[in-house]
């Protein structure tokens, strides 16, 4: 098995378990326990999903943290050579608007623009399509697509809060959706948990089949580290928040971070939830060509024993 493990994470509170693992050297610990000796773990923080994909596919890293929808695309395009390794977090996504005339997604007009990270393939875009399918009928799933605009979260948030741009709505994730709601003009018109009828996984950890098969012990160590980190966060909210503030160098206050961690809708768990719903929908709309048999198809055997969906 390899002596060096390379992991790419992204920026934000969603990646907290990975930060805990990095700070507390949990993989090193579990690798040693598994008899692998001293494994070196290298961490990289990347600025976006596209770079993360490239990093994995070019063999520059072994594990990546990725959104659910990009994982499904990766799985489909690689013919199952890239799969989820474990879920990372569960989180709702809010569609916020500053347009007082919009009470539900039915009220959007040509004057409105909905910002989201990437049209068609981001989890936000899929959620919006699912909501549209519910509201306007399955064949009209893309009715709202023409209002959508690809924008990075902070740019979209600045645009929404400035109130002077064409951007009147933003389908986004923590912490941006909470920060937006601090502004009295902004309201939530859609919650992804309502669309899916319950919580769903937001980000996952993924790796390649080749790596997974050649490094079973190391994979076990990574899973163990993830479990321990999730456990740690659940039990030591305050300490985890402090660790996040210190390690990420964020300027958010500890109170803000803590209140987000305390939000019951958010959670950290390795068990995938509602992933198959996304995959099936994406297959129905033609975004992916192959349909997974069930959620286990999308994940390595690591988490097959869980009560996932």
């Amino acid at each position, binding site marked *: 098995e390899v002596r060096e493990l390379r992991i790419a994470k992204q920026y934000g509170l969603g990646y907290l378990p990975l930060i805990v693992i990095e700070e507390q050297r949990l993989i090193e610990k579990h690798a040693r326990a598994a008899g692998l000796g001293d494994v070196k773990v290298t961490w990289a923080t990347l600025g976006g999903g596209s770079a993360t994909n490239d990093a994995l596919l070019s063999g520059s890293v072994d594990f990546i943290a990725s959104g659910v929808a990009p994982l499904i695309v*990766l799985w489909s395009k690689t013919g199952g050579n890239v799969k989820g390794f474990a879920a990372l977090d569960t989180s709702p996504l809010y569609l916020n608007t500053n347009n007082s005339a919009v009470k539900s997604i039915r009220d959007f007009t040509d004057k409105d623009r909905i910002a989201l990270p990437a049209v068609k*393939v981001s989890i936000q875009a899929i959620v919006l399509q699912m909501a549209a399918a519910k509201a306007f009928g399955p064949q009209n799933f893309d009715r709202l697509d023409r209002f959508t*605009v690809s924008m990075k979260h902070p*740019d979209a948030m600045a645009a929404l809060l400035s109130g002077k*741009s064409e951007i009147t709505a933003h389908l986004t994730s923590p912490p941006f959706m909470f920060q937006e709601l601090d502004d009295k003009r902004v309201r939530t018109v859609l919650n992804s948990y309502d669309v899916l009828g319950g919580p769903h996984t937001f980000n996952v950890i993924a790796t390649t089949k080749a790596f997974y098969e050649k490094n079973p012990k190391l994979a076990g160590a990574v899973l163990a580290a993830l479990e321990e980190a999730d456990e740690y966060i659940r039990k030591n909210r305050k300490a985890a928040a402090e660790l996040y503030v210190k390690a990420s160098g964020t300027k958010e206050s500890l109170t803000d971070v803590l209140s987000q961690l305390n939000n019951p809708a958010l959670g950290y768990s390795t068990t995938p939830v509602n992933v198959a719903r996304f995959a099936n929908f994406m297959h129905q709309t033609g975004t992916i060509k192959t349909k997974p048999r069930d959620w286990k198809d999308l994940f390595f055997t690591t988490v097959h024993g869980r009560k996932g969906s």
Partner: protein
Amino acid sequence: MTALLDARTAAEPEAIGEIARPLSIGERLWNLGWLRKGFLLALLFSLWEWYAVRLDNQLVFPAFSATVQALGDALVNGGLVSSILVSLKVLLAGYGIGIALAALLAVTAIGTRLGNDLLDLLTAMFNPLPAIALLPLALLWFGLGSGSIIFVLVHAVLWPVALNAHAGFSGISPTIRMVGRNYGLTGWRYARHILFLAAFPSLLTGLRTGWAFAWRTLIAAELVFGVSSGSGGIGWFIYENKNQLEIAAVFAGLLTVILIGIGVENLLFRLLEQRTVLRWGMKQ
């Protein structure tokens, strides 16, 4: 043009004519620029194919053949043609405005000391700024859509073109400047009749650099400014396909940019060069 062969010559004027050294077929073929370049191009594309096949990782670096196939597909079904047109329209607008502003700035700079300082300063300040730095202002002033992209393109084109134009103007031989002034030319007439032509080699380099950077920026900007789906250009085409991991299509988009680049270089810049600086002996 045997008329040039003066009849005043001493002996047997008829005997003085063109002496063509016979060239072998090989030499003659080698003299054809497009053939040499075609050969090089074929070589580069073969190298691409070879490396990609050896690498065998279509999701990172697809083969040339797969790219060409994806290109054909995209041209026929994938709406690449309309993407190209959208991109070209925006590109030309940004390029044109950028060049016009650069000319204005460079002429001001050559005419007045304060203008010179201003160009110096503005170039030093803004040239190193990436397009994303302009994002907030662009959105503020032009909103979503091509207005903002044009603004960013102008930024990409303006500084290198102005820099080259100004350097070109400053390098004009004092004699030529004096000749121009001698005709009483001043201001824009002086710029048009003397500066622009005398600095043409530098201007051409500026135009080439500006053109390339307009493309680079356009593709990056189309991602950032995320045009509402549907009406995107090549950048958008690349971005969408990248998100969907249609890497062959991504490379098809890039190949399109490359082919347009080669086309513009050889059909526009090279021709322009031949009809100007090369003919005028200002460049070897």
